[in-house]
């Protein structure tokens, strides 16, 4: 391990490289930053800040936040169910099905969420004939894409279960279904909680991508308010703070959840 102090000691006195690295470079950068802040920034914007817009549109913003939370929660719930299904189906001894699942996972992992979203909203109705609202398209896009990531996570969780558990289940005469539902999946679930929490946080952030289709979540609402009131600084800063606080609250929660599960006996 190279700690910060260890590298700091690399700034040996007398060596030119050390001197450049420890004094000249930070000073030059600092001076450049301050000069840019003075010359490049038009500070008069501070006088025009008016955060009353946020209070005025609080109901719309709260509605947007609620939509963000709802769409994240329910699409991840569906994504997790699909992810478990795909991960289990990957154990079915029928190769074409496994290839199909592998292709599905790879395709959804390697395309941007916006593209999937617009494809579902504009292209899928051409194929199926069913039109969806923007909110439904957003929900489906997030559920499908998260299912691909979660299938990988669940598969890794299943692989992490010691072989002894499988053997023990067979030795005790568990049927195939009960082996999965009573022994393998509950243990896999405990293992996948940390990566699951990461993905959940990622999709909480990614839900703002749905604003490109005006799905009606927080970022959509903010964009509308800023267009209507010409107060982009206030609205976008406010929702940035909301995303930040809620994101850190969620990561705190998952940290507690992890600790809780670590306590229970596997």
């Amino acid at each position, binding site marked *: 391990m190279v700690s910060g102090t260890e590298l700091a000691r690399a700034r040996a006195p007398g060596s030119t490289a050390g001197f450049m690295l420890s004094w000249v470079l930070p000073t030059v950068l600092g001076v450049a930053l301050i000069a840019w802040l003075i010359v490049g920034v038009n500070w008069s914007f501070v006088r025009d800040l008016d955060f009353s817009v946020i209070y005025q549109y609080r109901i719309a913003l709260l509605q947007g936040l609620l939509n963000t939370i709802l769409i994240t929660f329910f699409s991840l719930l569906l994504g997790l169910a699909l992810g478990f299904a795909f991960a289990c189906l990957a154990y079915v001894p029928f190769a074409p099905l496994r290839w199909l699942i592998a292709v599905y996972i790879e395709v959804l992992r390697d395309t941007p969420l916006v593209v999937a979203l617009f494809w579902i909203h504009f292209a899928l109705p051409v194929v199926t004939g069913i039109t969806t609202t923007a909110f439904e398209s957003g929900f489906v896009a997030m559920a499908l894409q998260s299912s691909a990531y979660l299938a990988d996570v669940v598969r890794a969780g299943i692989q992490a279960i010691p072989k002894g558990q499988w053997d023990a289940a067979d030795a005790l005469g568990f049927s195939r279904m009960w082996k999965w539902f009573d022994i393998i999946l509950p243990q896999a679930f405990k293992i996948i909680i940390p990566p699951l929490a990461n993905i959940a946080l990622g999709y909480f952030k990614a839900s703002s*991508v749905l604003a490109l289709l005006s799905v009606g979540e927080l970022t959509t609402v903010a964009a509308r308010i800023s267009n209507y009131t010409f107060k982009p600084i206030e609205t976008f800063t406010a929702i940035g703070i909301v995303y930040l606080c809620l994101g850190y609250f969620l990561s705190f929660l998952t940290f507690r959840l992890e600790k809780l599960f670590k306590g229970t006996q596997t």
Partner: protein
Amino acid sequence: MRFDTSVIWQNLPMLLAGIWLTVVIVFLSLAVAIVIGLLVCAGTLLGRGFVYHLSIGYVALFRALPEPVIIFWLYYCGPLVLNSKLSAFESGTIALAIPSGAYLAEIFRAGIQAVPRGQIEAARALGLPSFWLVWDVVAPQALRIMIPPILGIVTILIKNSALVSAIGVEELFYRATVLGGQTFHYFEFLTVAAVIYFLMILPLSVVVQRQERRLLAKVW
């Protein structure tokens, strides 16, 4: 339903221009992100006091903010806050580079810290000057660890580059949606765009996954 390829061939130059701009945006914002990442990483490892807290704060802030919020903030608030005017292309590129810089800083820091301490002690015992210590001992070993996660960041960057279409940068996704709207052939254009993104990301993703699997094999 019919997949009408003739529309695609007719508008191929537009799509190619879109692909080109996507590639340019990805490379430019990657370059800016690497510079940001190196500076912030140096700040977290070497800095003290204000510089250290500034670097830590940068990473904590921009890893938690959604990319569209950063893009919208820079594009809509930029003209109000800055004296110089940023074009959509410039603000989009910078907005993509800002969060990637935060991720890269963490990758650089983790990579440097993963180099065994004994390597540095040995180099110091041999009397290696500090510059060569970093250049010859730490950097090559850290770089090897860092390459897969950096490729992961590149894939995320390619995916996020589609978001700058929201502020009117005419990259691949923007072209696909506009052409789809003009010709009412959404199905063809969006499918082609999805396939192109897939082909751009797939090779990188395969490398990253292979590396991950190798790491997992070590753990289990």
